[in-house]
């Protein structure tokens, strides 16, 4: 439940700069002392800040890089427990050391383990790890978009933030807005009859309005090969921001399903803790017909994810396609065919197919023909972009494009992400980005008429839907591709959708 210390470390690859690496540290001596008392002679003292920075950066591969095998760090015997690490210091090994990496910074903490570390308990038995991890995520939110210098300047603010979020190192609140309300100390007057929740210490004053958004995502990897099955799934998130006067109100709403899209059932709902009750089927999965889902909740003031859901696998992906690429020495022949599924709303805010040539930039289009859309080269000159928005041709939902692209000589290995490294020679993919407003493939929507607020009041309601491609790839038919498919003999054993 508690932490021994919190650090924010700047990722530095210069060994002589460890002194500058720690941007912030906060030690909770009471839990350090308890830890000493519990561990006795096995206790590992916390090192000085520069030494800790050095050890953490080494363990995470930020100092010596990952190019060289180092037994202490890379041995196969070390079991990965991310976000938990074992940090090797001159005093011994610090565990369970929690690290969250974001934007060149490492947010770290060392939880207190009341049952002792000898033997090491499993992480499921250490609540401090979960609370520490959540607190670090909160800190990343609090300091989002802040530079290292700004963070150093805000040391005082961080102390204050932590004094409310984790007094004495015992985590108490992990919602940024809620903690900041406590830091600012401008609380609303409690009602005489009801108790005020700790996660809503301030009341809204102003216009009453409620925003509800359903964002449905689809991801797909298509190979267009007989021996490899295409992969796709659809999932969604309902986001809510309720600016309603008064201390606490209860909102009831229904996620209904219209006849648009494929009308697939939504399953595997996971809900925000503020949801007081959901329909009786919340834990029943694997249903085969669409039905409305009803939720009752007391909204906090900040924007929050009301629920996440998954959609039973649709029969086909929204857009199917085939991507062919032949790379010759200095040029590449590209051929793409895309087909829009009949059930998908043909009205795109964005619809672009990106074909990256990261290692062969700058590229130049030599020849191009397409029965629809425009072909252009991205501003970085590394990606071929086929823009298909705002819609596929009305009477012909299959579009195709072919082009010859002039390439520069290969710039060698080791560039970019691991997937970009994979893409050498004929290994290539095209990635589709699209967004459709007021549509979801599952047909889910917020039934505005079903929304009830108690105690009742007038408010402005805004309901939005969007359908977005999250990771949508077509692998080159003529190259190798990344595949992970269940052996066919096991597919019928699958109890829940992957």
């Amino acid at each position: 439940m508690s932490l021994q210390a919190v650090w924010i470390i700047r990722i530095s690859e210069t060994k002589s700069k460890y002194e500058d690496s720690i941007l912030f540290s906060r030690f909770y001596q009471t839990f350090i002392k308890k830890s000493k008392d519990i561990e006795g002679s096995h206790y590992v003292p916390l090192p000085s800040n520069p030494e800790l920075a050095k050890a953490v950066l080494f363990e995470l591969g930020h100092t010596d890089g990952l190019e060289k095998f180092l037994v202490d760090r890379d041995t196969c015997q070390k079991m990965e427990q991310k976000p938990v690490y074992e940090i090797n210091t001159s005093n011994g090994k610090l565990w369970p050391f929690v690290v969250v990496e974001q934007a060149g910074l490492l947010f770290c903490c060392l939880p207190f383990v009341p049952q002792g570390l000898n033997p090491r308990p499993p992480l499921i038995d250490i609540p401090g790890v979960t609370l520490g991890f959540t607190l670090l995520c909160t800190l990343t939110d609090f300091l989002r978009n802040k530079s290292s210098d700004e963070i150093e300047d805000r040391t005082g603010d961080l102390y204050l933030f932590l004094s409310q979020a984790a007094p004495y190192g015992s985590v108490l609140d992990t919602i940024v807005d809620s903690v900041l309300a406590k830091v600012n100390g401008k609380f609303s007057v409690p009602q005489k009859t009801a108790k005020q929740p700790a996660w809503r210490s301030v009341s809204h004053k102003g216009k009453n309005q409620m925003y509800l958004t359903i964002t449905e995502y689809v991801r797909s990897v298509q190979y267009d090969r007989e021996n490899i099955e295409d992969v796709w799934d659809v999932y969604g998130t309902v986001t809510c921001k309720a600016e309603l006067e008064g201390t606490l109100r209860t909102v009831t709403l229904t996620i209904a399903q219209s006849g648009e899209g494929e009308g697939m059932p939504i399953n595997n709902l996971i809900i925000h803790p503020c949801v007081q009750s959901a329909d009786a089927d919340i834990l029943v999965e694997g249903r085969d017909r669409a039905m409305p889902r009803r939720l009752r909740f007391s909204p906090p003031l900040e924007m929050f994810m009301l629920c996440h859901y998954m959609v039973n696998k649709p029969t086909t992906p929204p857009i199917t396609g085939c991507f062919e690429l032949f790379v010759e020495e200095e040029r590449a022949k590209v051929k793409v065919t895309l087909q829009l599924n009949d059930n998908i709303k043909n009205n795109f805010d964005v619809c672009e197919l990106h074909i990256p040539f990261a290692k062969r930039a700058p590229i130049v289009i030599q020849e191009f023909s397409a029965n629809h859309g425009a072909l252009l080269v991205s501003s970085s000159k590394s990606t071929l972009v086929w823009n298909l928005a705002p819609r596929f041709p009305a009477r012909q939902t299959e579009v195709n494009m072919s082009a010859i692209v002039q390439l520069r000589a290969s710039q060698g290995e080791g560039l970019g992400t691991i997937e970009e490294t994979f893409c050498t020679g004929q290994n290539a993919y095209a990635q589709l980005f699209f967004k459709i407003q007021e549509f979801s493939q599952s047909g889910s929507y917020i039934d505005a008429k079903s929304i009830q607020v108690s105690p009742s009041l007038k408010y402005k309601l805004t309901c939005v839907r969007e359908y977005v491609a999250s990771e949508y790839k077509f692998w080159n038919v003529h190259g190798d591709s990344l595949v992970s498919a269940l052996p066919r003999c096991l597919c019928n054993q699958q109890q829940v959708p992957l």
Partner: protein
Amino acid sequence: MEKSGNEIIREFRAEKKKGSIVKRFKDEFFALDLIRIMYDDSEKLVDKFEILVALEEYGHLGISSESVDQVVTSLLDVYHQAQDKSEASHFVCQLLTTCTSLIIQMNQLESDLCDLLVKELVAIVTSRVNQLGSENLRSCACQSLLLLEETSPGVVLGYYEELVQCCRQERSHMFQDYCLLTSRLMESFVKITKENPMSPVVRSKGKVQRQFSADVTDMRQTVSYLVENVPMFTRSATFRVIHTLSNLIKTSTDLSPIIFKSLMLHEMSTMSCIVFHTALYLQRVFKGTLLTVQEESNLVQRLCLMTNHPCLNQLHRQLTTQWALGYKQFEDEQMDTRESLICQYRLQFYPSVFDSVDCQLAKLYMTSLCVDTSSDNDGIETSILLGSLGCLHKLVWHTGSMLAARALFRALYFIYTRHNNPHFSQDIQRFVRGLISEFAHFIPHSIDFVDSIHGLNINSDIFVETLSLLHQQVIMATGDQIYTSFPYYLQIMKKVASQPKINQSSTLKFLNYLSDNAQEIDDSSWQLGHNILDICRNVIINQGTQLYYSDLCELLYSLLTDYNNTDVQDQAKLYYCLLIAAADSKVKSVLQPTQRAVDSMSQALSSLLPGTTGKSSLAKIVHMEGPVFTWERLCVTPQWFVSDTSTQTSEQSPDSVAEYIKRLSTLEVVVEVKCRLHLVDACSFPAVHAVSISVEDSLTFQHIPKVHVPCISKGAHHDTVLKVKPLQAIPIALNSFVDFCADTKQTFTTSMPAVTVEFVHFMLPLPWKQSKEFKFEELWNYVVEPYNDKPKGLKSVKLFEVTAEQFMKIHHQRLAKYLVSSSPDYSDTRYAMLVPPRSHVLLQCEGQGHTVVVTMAMDQISVLPHVSSFLENVFTVSHG
């Protein structure tokens, strides 16, 4: 203290970064100095706040048990002065926090000081219920009391009734803090009464403190009240309250955990990490008493779903996978006869193309735990296991990524620890061998993997087989692969050499290849040489000397004669001598890694060989005055070669003198002096061993490596070629001496007669054929004029009384090979010679009746007398 609070804070921040702040706080009076700032109204509250934080973090370093009283009392005094200032809210909270923390750190929990603080804190909590504007102060006081009670159960317990009453009255968001404190007090009460059922709550020093009574009904009601109000709490506070209450219920026989059931059923649908963990925690603590089998199955399904839910971020999913691992281990420990619930959802853990490398590894751990290959007759389980590795393996195979490889080897090791059946082991071997065939830089991973599975002591055959496969892969490496990846290959060879079950003939062939090509592969580096020798040592120690005797001798001999590094030669010599002269056990005892290097290296070779490794006989070298060897020069051959092979132009004629000059920079002249060494007839040794011929260094030529001869018997001889690289084209004398070992194991040294190389031996025709564009005049100008770093050359003229016929004869006998051009009647003849290191001698001979005028040009002034002597010899001796 002169510095302002703000200055001190800036210093604190800098010192925290450097880690030197502890020195400052070790000063006993520093804390007292800081307290003075707290009284100073001119200091900013934010600065005072940060100073208090530093005092909380580091104060214990300097504050003693005597001075803590003074510090805490002072801080409380400051608190009393500032408590009603609304703008000082955070400052006064930090004052209480620092006081509480110092009391705990300094073990003052049983002191009057602690009582004083507790009274102060209780007053804040009880007297200001629902008071607006005091929320943060009351929250801080509640948390302080909670920490004190948690650290020393009973210390706040005397105020239980008031505090519970306040808890029920409080309506603001502060209610949560009161509930946390109440739950903690109840836990303490149950714990203390269980330990001492008959006695009241007693504090130390024998003082009976305030007593209270709490009957079971009250307790049950309060627990219910707290659980009912859980929706009012933040997620973290929910876990904390539930954790405390579950401890209470575990201890108490009067309370049932069923109170948590509805809460748990609600929590298991949540996306919150903390809340879901609360449900898991309750299930772990009260397994079998709270949830039905179906409900537990739902919980586990939810857990498995979270590991794979695309809406959750990657770290969240990885953390839930760790919980799943813990849950599975818990199921295994329970030895439950039911089928594992986690295993029912095992296909959730099958890696997906959408997963990152880290997520794939986490899922592979789970897949490995959930499949059972022990009785896998239809092969389905094994196919799941192998198939699950496919995506990661492909990623490694196509990218050579170290990150992906590390994950793959970790997965393989984890799988091997649980599924070490022969079929799967073969698949693992295939994986590993395939990877290193394509990426030598994965060899360290492979070796670590092999070592790790060996350490498991499950099946030593697998270890040997895997190592053997890796060995075979290295042996099959092409020349190009060896050139680029030899350091990795040597790591495998080193490991293999220690393995008696693997045949080492091919290892030694591989090492021979490295030794023969050491110059090209790694410029005959010390590192390479010693790696080869280390492997030889491993072979000798682990395989004995007999099995590979001739292969080892051949390799060591090659190293000691040809390897271009003295230290490597010396060590090779030691090994070689040991090998040929000492018994197997002796060699092993000398070369054992446990043998201290100083012991083996400070002894004469001769003292090691007879059969003792004692230190009594250290190296002594006897100088032989009389002649022992005959050392004669057989022939001298100058040669030039192009050191930079990348130019690829050594065969082509330079187009011009400019091109010729450019090429000269890549050219080297070597004079090979072939000599013969044999023992003089009068020598008393029938044979000598470990003969090492050293040529003394000189300023006129580059260092000549030692020549090593294993053995020379009387009557036999050894021919050797000394490669001399002159730095100037002047005659040189090669002074040499020989170290050798006699049959008596004594080491001797003796000098040998000098071998000379004359100026004429240095003269070479111009390198490369001259094209028509090649102008002698331009070369002449280059030689006599300064050019870049080359100084100005020299011209000279000499007259010889020689007829045209005589000159023709001289030309054909002595000068023709240096000819560049001539008139048809040889009245104007031009010669050019290349001399070391990259210099020239140019001659222009013009016949004038009975006289030949020889005009000379040379770019080394020191060469003139030798050229002059050469011409004297040619024109006078030759014709007459």
